[in-house]
């Protein structure tokens, strides 16, 4: 069974098989066998990967993989709108420095939309997918709170 997940913002297509409690995951020409182990403490998932016991601080798709930070989105397609809105949101209170697009613009994934200043640093809000700009909610010079939506995009698909 082919499946897709977004892992650290990159879509990853893999092959999934089940043998009893064991999951077989194939990516490219590699394959691992994984099994869920009991939990010791909330927020830490223990897996058996190819016979080796490993533990991962992990909850609700966020966690650590050894030294690396991890973000796993299993339902990123269904809830694409919600996920993508997340990145069109002000990361913290600040000031809108530049609005780079206009209503109705076609933007490519990764294209810069708005530049804001927060904590004395510039931060750029980018489109996470190819889309049409539906609405721009603030203008240059506006002070915005953290966590508010700045732009509305409409999926081109």
């Amino acid at each position: 069974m082919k499946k897709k997940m977004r892992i650290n913002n990159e879509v990853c297509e893999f092959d999934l098989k089940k043998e009893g409690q064991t999951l077989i995951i194939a990516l490219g020409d590699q394959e691992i066998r994984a099994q869920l182990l009991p939990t010791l403490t909330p927020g830490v998932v223990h897996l058996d990967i190819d016979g080796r016991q490993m533990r991962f601080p992990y909850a609700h798709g966020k966690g650590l993989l050894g030294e690396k930070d991890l973000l796993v989105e299993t339902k990123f397609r269904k809830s694409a709108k919600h996920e993508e809105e997340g990145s069109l949101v002000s990361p913290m209170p600040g000031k809108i420095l530049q609005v780079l697009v206009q209503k109705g613009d076609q933007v490519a994934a990764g294209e810069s939309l708005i530049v804001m200043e927060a904590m004395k640093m510039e931060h750029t809000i980018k489109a996470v997918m190819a889309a049409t700009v539906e609405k721009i909610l603030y203008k240059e010079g506006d002070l915005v709170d953290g966590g508010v939506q700045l732009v509305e995009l409409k999926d081109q698909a």
Partner: protein
Amino acid sequence: MSKNRTIKRILMANRGEIACRVIRSCREMGIEVVTLFTPVEADYPHRLLADFSVNLGDGNLAETYLNQEKIIAIAKKYNVDAIHPGYGFLSENAAFARLVAKNELILIGPTAENMTLMGDKKASKQLMEEIGVPLIPGYHGDKQDHEFLFQEAKKIGLPLLIKASAGGGGKGMRVVNDWEQFETELAAAKREAMNAFGDDIVLLERYITSPRHIEIQVISDQLGNHYHLFERECSIQRRHQKMVEESPSSVLTPELREKMAQDAVTIASHINYVGAGTIEYILDLDGSYYFLEMNTRLQVEHPVTEFVTGLDLVKLQIQVAQGQALPFKQEDLRQAGHAIEVRLYAEDPDNNFLPSIGVIESIGQTNGDCRLDIGLVNGNEVSVNFDPMLAKLISYGVDREDARLKLIEALKDYPFIGVKTNREYLLRILKHPEFIKGNTLTHFVSTYEGDLGHVPLTNEEKMIACALGVLSSSADSSGPETKQKVDQTPWAHLHGFRN
């Protein structure tokens, strides 16, 4: 300052991890603690772990943690004996120290005079000249004719830094390695300065090619005893804030350590210092060192000193404030083993260290024996209201490598799920070959920028991530609960600052 007065109750005029740190020592000493909190901090540990806690109300810092009158009124209402200022906030505020004394309360810290003197850059540098503590050679005057500047430059020696007085950010800054270049570089610096700042006044300073930040912890009682608790090296910084601190430093010889420490004790003794303080130096490759400043308070990085000396600096601060003599002599003190501290910040190191916010879903916990100094629990919100430092993680081992490996293991146990942190970046630093060798210069982060970048997941890691995604849905249900809160905080607060 009152002498020989027993402290039974303390007002903690600070918040977060340092308030929790002070509560811990007080609890062990049988001293009660009154803390302060703002409405958004009602469920923060520093509020709830205290014996009493007072709501400061809404408002910016000037109306809350920096509101001297309000804090004194609370101290009197709760009948405290002493006030602990922590670091940042009012900790180096001489006016506050005087106000505390006027109200016949004990300030757990140095005298107002100590603060005033060391807060005055010019006066403190003059003092260093008098008592023979080295300063970076330089000329900072207004006289700017080229011949005069060249004479001053000759006195300072090579390599030489020419810098716009009004400047910053590298503009109007030139390094001279050869006297023949002096004229050209001076002219260029002045031209750049004029263009950038509309002012061509420059200053001259010895250029430190391989600087390290070394500081000496001192502790003084009210009876005239002044001791040092060895050094900390805090060279690894980003945006002028410390990230990694350790003791001992990898480069100090016993002779150099003794010399820097003796200078620190001389300063403390000369100004009749009281309490815990830190003399910051810049150290060059050749063993030259120069006084930077004195911090007249407890330092964020004090735990590394606690590990290598086995002392509790907060308890010592309180003992000293009570008028007690320090319970040791210099010769009793020993710097044993090696301690390393890292500061966990809510920030994105892969995006110019941009501060991040969010609700902490899961801090994590370690099976190792590192010390985590923290003022947050799961469910607390990290906002821009306060300092972005989430916690300090400190390891202690028989040697540097042992401490380093312990710290690496512990950093893998603290995900701080819910907010972007510099955790992964700290791991990259700790595993960098030059860090392992002890080559920790103050420009470490920019020098090795290329090596410290984001490392993508390997193919195998991606497969494991897929397994986690598929298998953990059941495990997820037992994940830690988080309390979603409404952000009621207005924009543009001041920040508690410290280094």
